């Protein structure tokens, strides 16, 4: 029957989704939402999440197509399988929303986040911070005699890991962009 039809490419690891629909497992999904770039569209999407009690782990938005005034919203959300399906359906029916893609189930995808870290310190801490930054391929974008600002791009996990290492070395401030994501491959 239609409801039981198995979607191809349902997880990034398997070609088929064989998970139990009723499982109460909380999953993390990255959604790409293509919207008309009109006033208030972000408020509509966010309002839907808060109004219906859905989670937002991260959110980025910017215009990606100037000719057709389309913006891309990337939302990382968590919920049970049923809740994630509801979120997609609810977002999909917002009038200025053109497309909703669940990058987590639609096939392999790349996710990147940019972060800035301000690390204060002198002596060995300062040297250690610089050494670790090199290992993580973080760039120094600002420097004083007592501080660095590192810039780093990577997955959220990599940024978390770097932040964890910097904390004892004098991390005082962090800014993160949230996740931007695209499906791998040539298709759109």
């Amino acid at each position, binding site marked *: *029957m*239609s*409801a039981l039809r198995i979607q191809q490419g349902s997880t990034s690891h398997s070609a088929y989704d064989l998970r139990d629909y009723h499982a109460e497992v909380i999953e993390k999904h990255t959604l790409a939402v293509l919207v008309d770039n009109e*006033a*208030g569209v972000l408020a509509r999407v966010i*309002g839907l999440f808060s109004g219906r009690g859905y989670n937002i782990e991260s959110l980025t938005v910017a215009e990606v197509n100037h000719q057709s005034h389309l913006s891309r919203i990337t939302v990382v959300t968590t919920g049970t399988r*049923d809740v994630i399906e509801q979120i997609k*359906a609810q977002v999909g*029916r917002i009038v*200025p929303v053109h497309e909703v893609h669940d990058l987590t189930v639609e096939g392999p995808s790349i996710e990147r986040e940019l972060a800035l870290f301000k690390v204060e310190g002198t002596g060995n801490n300062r040297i250690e911070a610089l050494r670790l930054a090199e290992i993580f391929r973080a760039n120094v974008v600002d420097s004083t005699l007592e501080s660095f600002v590192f810039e780093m791009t990577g997955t959220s996990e990599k940024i978390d890991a770097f932040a964890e290492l910097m904390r004892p070395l004098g991390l005082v401030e962090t800014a993160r962009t949230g996740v931007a994501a695209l499906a791998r491959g040539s298709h759109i």
Partner: protein
Amino acid sequence: MTRQMTGAKMVVQALKDQGVDTVFGYPGGAVLPVYDEIFQQNDIKHVLVRHEQAAIHAAEGYARSTGKPGVALVTSGPGATNAVTGLTDALLDSIPLVVFSGQVPTFMIGTDGFQEADTIGITRPCTKHNWLVKDTDKLSETIHQAFHVATSGRPGPVLIDLPKDVQFADGEYTPPAKAKVSHYQPRVKASIEEITDLVALIEKAERPVFYTGGGVINSGPGASQLLRELVDATGFPITSTLMGLGAYPASGKGWLGMLGMHGLYEANMAMHGCDLMINIGARFDDRITGRIQDFSPNSTKVHVDIDPSSINKIIRVDLPVIGDVGHVLEDVLKVWKSRGRKVADTSAWWEQIEEWRKVRCLTYKPSETVIKPQYALERLEALTKGMDRYVTTEVGQHQMWAAQFLNFEDPNRWMTSGGLGTMGYGFPASIGVQLAHPESLVINVAGEASWLMNMQEMGTAMQYRAPVKQFILNNERLGMVRQWQQLLHGERYSSSWSESLPDFVKLAEAFGAKGIQCSDPKDLDDAIMEMINYDGPVIFDCLVEKHENCFPMIPSGKAHNEMLLGDASVEGAIKSDGAVLV
């Protein structure tokens, strides 16, 4: 062909081009230019309500009884905030409305100007979509788009916020035919696989039930016709939600009556015991399902809905069919016929249903001295049967009794606030219905408490000579609240009396209408006939039994097969975990 005109003129021109004949509204500073244009033409009738909430409910009544979008016009600030309840009501019941609100001029937005409110922000979650128009050149196109959005897919209310300078400024008018096509085009045809799967289920079901809702009504009269054809040809039983009454005639042979919290025993038991549930245009509302875990445990469930977000929202279904009810029914009938009109033997199922019917769940204890509310509605039904009749209701016990005891043979004849449960809805809605159907009998079945919430609309009814009949079942209580306090809160009747009620007869007379009071069952028939025959608005103050409870009832947190049938069965019926539910 484009033309230059002011924004205000554009509003009126666009309404004409969209085929609008009636606008419900209330003027104020920020919409004066539009009112000025309305003054200078005769094609569109403006109905002056007495409160903006009533404008929206009247537009809903108009929309629900005609199938056309209702249109309302309010001013900025308080005008718009007063409209919020009506917009939410229309959103939850999927009623197409196009509402215009005035706004302070664009250069004043954000300055906390006089009568400024963030109308777009406030109405964003209670409309299907809304627009702030900042450029007069874009106004006409936005209005056409608004009508498209309100009426396509799952219908709903939309709002256009009009800054005053945009109304004054000149711009280019784009007629509907020239407006650019919206990307918003919800799918109306279901896939052939879905249709075929549904037909295969119909062919082999032994204990089937159709469970239909407001989606059938919203799909138009054609959908109701197709539903009748399918139900009668298959011989399957059918029940409906509160919102869907009339899509299938109450006199039809498949009819089980309404289902749900105060639905009929046979309807709920059929839902619980069926092997195939075909949900057509309903949404598994919590008033319908009772306890989710025990909802119809042994059935294959099909859900036909135009809104994909309704699928699996509450109840996981086996076969979702996404499409417009009318299109789906047409395709199902076509495929089912072409495959030889096969159905399994459902006679044992019908025998079971007959057993359930013998419970006679609507039985109440009659009285010779006091008017029982059920009796009042039975008499209203008997005396208006066959008339060109429209019924609206307020919200509460009277609403449930009306749904149980009045019979509807056609769609768009029953207009009630289902999803939001808005007390104060019925009276203004009845005015909207009456103005759309000037020659018909329009009755608002009300409770005295609900009715008082928008009683100022007596002025509107009188001004426009809308001969609406306000049939108030007056128990001097907030009946449903009282019933719940009796069942759930140890009979502590906190604030559920209607104290200091007006003399409804004198109230009617104060407005120049007719007032009738009736308290003796023996006088009831004559009094109802007097109400029907009076050419003008009537307030009928029907003094009824004060402590009557509405049964059957599925208590909160219980399943369909755990209905309470009468006062004898209520003792300790609702557990504390059910009490937290509404």
